């Protein structure tokens, strides 16, 4: 065991973590902990683009981008934060280009842009080309570019160190406890500021675009420390995952002109979204697909529809969507230039998460009281810029804009204060947890409980929800949590013990599944990604507010609420 000391500790090495680290390390002694090698982070799987109103093809303004984001969020996004994101988008995308990011180019040599769902010109008139792209591997390019810059600037990395706890005392975060995967050693990291950038928790669901490693570790850890989680009922289902596998097929396919069709061959989105059609926001398209399936118009009566790109021509597909073509060949044995792709909605992105202000500071109540020394950025955080439904391309933007802001603010904060003393036994709870999981002799298995949770979440806490389904989910999750205490693992060793870590990750997933189901049960309206069949209308009078869910010491939960910040755009009916 060792104790390390850094001014700023970044946990997670995806887009938000690396951007935060790049900025924090300019003025503060900074280290990055990641349970993976940084280039394995799931930012690398993002495909279609990152939005910024560059106007490289046609007129565009950040205000239009802000309006689209507010409307996309079903008016639940905080408009001050959205304005910051959309304004800084332009500068941050240019900064990425200056870091060497290889965007595709227009004939004039500028960054190329394509249309994406819910992005429009002049406040909703028609689709606009706003998504800056590098083929269909924009996230890969962002992740690689940021990691390259971290190498250039000698950022300290602790690769394959999994964070299991935070040191939080008297409303101040003073560091983290990490498990070195290679050796099984537990280390204490003493820090003046900690930035959580651990990503989402899509592995709560059985059909997901998320990596196996997206288990919501950061969010679950802070929940146990009494920090609330915000808007957990809002989880995005991306409309086009590969049938049964969940692998993401970028919205960029529709941005390039791809069309969704049911078993009659109909372009059904014309009925659900007359103006934007296939480029409606994701919540709208995912619901439409489910409606088609329910009414028997899934392909062969099954639970999928077709995403048709055959009319785009082979050259365009190979040039603009090469990875998609590769996925289709590898996993489906089909050629997207010849055959349509079977798709279904796939659990994709957490709009909710750890509440923060616009500088990434974690806040613990409706009065925006900060938890000093703790920051969060990226998918794990809820600023909230995505509200009830995120627009495509705004996640990559969120990562770099708020990763940068968190890095800058955390470093400035760290440079103003001294290290706060930490107790000698700060790692004690983690040691006990690890020992208990390693040695417990029970008759339950991690994979079995995880699979049951994932199926339950898919069936009961998916695109459409009812009180009955959600109540059942809450009860069953309680049972699963009880059973999970009786897990026994087979690997009792110290070296690279993933058996142990998968058990701890399951505890994290179960906690997040539970607060998701509880928050969904609590919100008796339909807004964005949260569709209650028993409450089909949006209810601004009662529910134009953010949910905060707290875990009490006895394991029970309580709710509180936070007002939505509205600046320019008053809530209106949301039609596309």
């Amino acid at each position, binding site marked *: 065991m060792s104790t390390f000391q850094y001014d700023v500790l970044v946990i997670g090495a995806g887009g938000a973590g690396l951007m935060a680290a790049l900025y924090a390390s300019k003025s503060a002694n900074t280290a990055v902990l990641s349970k993976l090698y940084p280039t394995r982070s*799931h930012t690398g799987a993002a495909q279609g683009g990152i939005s910024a109103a560059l106007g490289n093809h046609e007129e565009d303004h950040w205000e239009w981008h802000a309006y689209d984001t507010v409307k996309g969020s079903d008016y639940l996004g905080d408009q001050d934060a959205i304005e910051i994101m959309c304004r800084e988008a332009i500068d941050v995308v240019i900064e990425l280009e*200056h870091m060497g990011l*290889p965007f595709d*180019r227009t004939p004039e*040599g500028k960054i190329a842009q394509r249309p994406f769902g819910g992005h429009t010109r002049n406040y909703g008139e028609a689709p606009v080309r706003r998504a800056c792209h590098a083929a269909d591997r924009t996230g890969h390019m962002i992740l690689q570019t940021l990691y390259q810059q971290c190498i250039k600037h000698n950022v300290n990395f602790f690769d394959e160190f999994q964070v299991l706890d935070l040191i939080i005392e008297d409303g101040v975060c003073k560091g983290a406890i990490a498990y070195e995967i290679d050796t099984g050693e537990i280390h204490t990291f003493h820090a003046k500021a900690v930035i959580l950038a651990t990503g989402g928790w899509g592995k709560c669901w059985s059909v997901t675009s998320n*990596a196996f490693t997206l288990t919501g570790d950061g969010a679950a850890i802070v929940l146990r420390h009494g920090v609330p989680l915000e808007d957990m009922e809002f989880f995005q289902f991306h409309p086009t995952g590969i049938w049964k596998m969940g*692998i993401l097929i970028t919205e960029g396919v529709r941005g390039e002109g791809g069309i969704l069709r049911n078993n009659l061959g109909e372009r059904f989105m014309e009925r659900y979204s007359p103006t934007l059609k296939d480029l409606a926001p994701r919540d709208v398209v995912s619901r439409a697909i489910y409606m088609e399936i329910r009414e028997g118009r899934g392909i062969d009566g099954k639970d999928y529809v077709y995403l048709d790109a055959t009319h785009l021509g082979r050259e365009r597909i190979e040039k603009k969507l090469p990875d998609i073509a590769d996925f289709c060949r590898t996993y489906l044995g089909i050629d997207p230039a010849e055959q349509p792709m079977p798709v279904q909605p796939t659990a994709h992105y957490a709009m909710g998460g750890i509440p923060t202000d616009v500088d990434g500071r974690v806040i613990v109540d409706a009065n925006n009281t900060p938890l000093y020394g703790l920051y969060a950025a990226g998918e794990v955080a809820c600023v909230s810029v995505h509200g009830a439904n995120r627009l495509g391309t705004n996640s990559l933007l969120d990562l770099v804009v708020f990763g940068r802001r968190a890095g800058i603010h955390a470093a400035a904060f760290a440079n103003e204060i001294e290290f706060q003393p930490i107790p000698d036994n700060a790692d004690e709870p983690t040691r006990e947890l690890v020992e208990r999981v390693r040695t417990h002799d029970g008759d339950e298995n991690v994979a079995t409980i995880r699979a049951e949770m994932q199926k339950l979440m898919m069936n009961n806490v998916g695109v459409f929800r009812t009180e009955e389904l959600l109540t059942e989910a809450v009860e069953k999750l309680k049972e699963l949590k009880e059973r999970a205490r009786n897990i026994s693992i087979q690997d009792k060793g110290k*070296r690279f013990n993933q058996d142990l870590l998968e058990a701890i990750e399951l505890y994290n997933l179960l906690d997040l599944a539970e607060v998701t189901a509880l928050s969904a049960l609590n919100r008796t309206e339909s807004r964005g990604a949260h569709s209650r069949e028993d409450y089909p209308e949006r209810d601004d009078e009662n529910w134009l507010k953010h949910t905060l869910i707290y875990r009490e010491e006895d394991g029970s939960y309580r709710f509180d609420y936070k007002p939505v910040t509205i600046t320019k755009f008053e809530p209106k009916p949301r039609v596309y």
Partner: protein
Amino acid sequence: MKVKLRIKRFNPEKDKEPWWGEYDVEMDPTDRVLDALHYVKWHIDGTLTLRRSCGHGICGSDAMRINGVNRLACKVLLRDVAPVVTVEPILGLPVIKDLVVDMEPFMAQYRSVMPYFVNDEPPPPRERLQSPEERAVFDDTTKCILCACCTTSCPSFWARGEYVGPAAIVQAHRFIFDSRDRAAAQRLEILNEPDGIWRCRTVYNCTNACPREIKITEAIAEVKKALLFSRL
């Protein structure tokens, strides 16, 4: 379908020598090798250890030797390799446990070639311009996910672990041929060292192994040509 998995196992806390574990599993033909490995890990032997993350060929975690060739376990369907599937760790890097190898020597070689954009001229207020043609020159090598399939399939690397290896050359290529970058000469200097690019014997193993279908041998040839040309 019935699949027999033969997995090379090694746990340094218990084993003096590696051994072969055999597991009979019932899988779908369209399942991936990764699914079969997960089945073993989750339902037969929890001590089986491998890296994986995204599960669809983008993150580069699960490079391994499958029936004698380097592949990502998440990109190989069982129907293409069954009924007997032999899985070993990639070669030439120290084994930590089972299918997990120490990636640090590989990452050190990667870091040695200045794998980052260099241009100290004051940037313009907007993006630096680059024509689609200039962008296309290095497109192929931007696809690299650092999985190490190429380097650990290279006989020159097996023979001498100090060889910088194809993956690092691919990364160098990505910047050497970027019209915006200004450090091509320095990278070429680095690759001109004794353990640099000239240890490539044009065996094409790297190109065959690349899960991203990067034409690695061609990229290496382009860098060699740049070196020769810049010397003339």
